[in-house]
């Protein structure tokens, strides 16, 4: 159980493992010394490795235009840019999405993934399944479950069902809404 030390350093211990770790540290002096030694080493390592990143502009349509202008032409252009901004945004990703909406079919394949270890079954139910439960498939052996579903563009509500009884909103989706039965649904906006 030596690697519990690294898991401790990397904040990866579960509650049970924390108990084990403490007991090892308490029972064995060499184990404690290893742990402290590696923690000391980690201080040096993270001081030499962990850098503060410079801010970079993502090359999205907005970001690409802004730094170029402000850097080269300064305040005058910045002022003009303020005037231009509404036009730039109107030609930004939104209109691209709108164009795609017209050109492409209105359903989109969406992959749902959830991490649930020690479960027998995970299902998904939502507005796009007419609230029927559809089982997810285990993905690998690490406790990931997944399913890809064809979903019409628009706003959808859904939730996972763990072991047939427990409702669990999608932890990767921030927007949630209480339903009429006291549990939460995740809200997903699908843009075609």
């Amino acid at each position, binding site marked *: 159980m030596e*690697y519990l030390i690294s898991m401790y350093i990397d904040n990866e211990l579960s509650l049970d493992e924390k108990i084990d770790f403490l007991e090892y540290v308490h029972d064995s002096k060499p184990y404690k010394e290893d742990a402290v030694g590696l923690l000391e080493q980690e201080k040096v390592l993270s001081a*030499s490795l962990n850098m503060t990143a*410079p801010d*970079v502009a993502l090359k999205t349509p907005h970001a690409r235009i802004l730094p170029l202008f402000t850097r080269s032409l300064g305040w005058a252009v910045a002022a003009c840019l303020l005037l231009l901004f509404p036009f730039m945004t109107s030609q930004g990703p939104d209109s691209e999405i709108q164009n795609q909406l017209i050109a492409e079919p209105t359903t989109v394949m969406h992959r749902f993934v959830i991490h649930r270890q020690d479960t027998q079954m995970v299902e998904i139910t939502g507005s796009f399944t007419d609230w029927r439960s559809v089982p997810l498939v285990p993905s690998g052996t690490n406790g990931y479950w997944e399913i890809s579903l064809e979903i019409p563009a628009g706003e959808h509500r859904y939730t996972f069902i763990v072991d047939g009884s427990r409702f669990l909103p999608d932890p990767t989706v921030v927007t949630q809404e209480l339903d009429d039965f006291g549990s939460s649904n995740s809200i997903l906006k699908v843009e075609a």
Partner: protein
Amino acid sequence: MSEEYRKFYDEYKNKLFSYLIYKSGDYEISRDIMQESFTRHFQHYGHDTIISPALLFTIARNALVDFRRQEKKFHIAEGVVPQVAADQENLLIAKEENSRAYDAMGRLSESDRDMLSLAVGGVAYKEIAATLGLSVANVKVRVHRARVKLRQMMNDEVE
């Protein structure tokens, strides 16, 4: 950029940058590849709606490999003295202070180094596993072994 992606960017930019600095040892290259990686990742995220940190690191690793391949092609132009920017100077100082750790890291195998620089950077085991195509159990063991190996190397140096 969506609010969600902005949060992701803020959380991961230092982690990615540290990893790239470690891998490339060059401030400018790291910055460029970081920008490239986030851009590509963001475009991908637009289709996926699930933000995957592992994908970000995979993109960055590949970009670095591509860059090195490119660099080898043009390696003949070696006479140019690179300019040392203020940031790079700071980096050099930081490097020297911790040069022992750095050197020892340099002597680890490529895969140990990958793993350790991700772990030290605070990337979750789950994401390291997905990035490097390993199981989480495997990452647990190998991260620890790499740490122990590193310590051994540094101790040997002192003696």
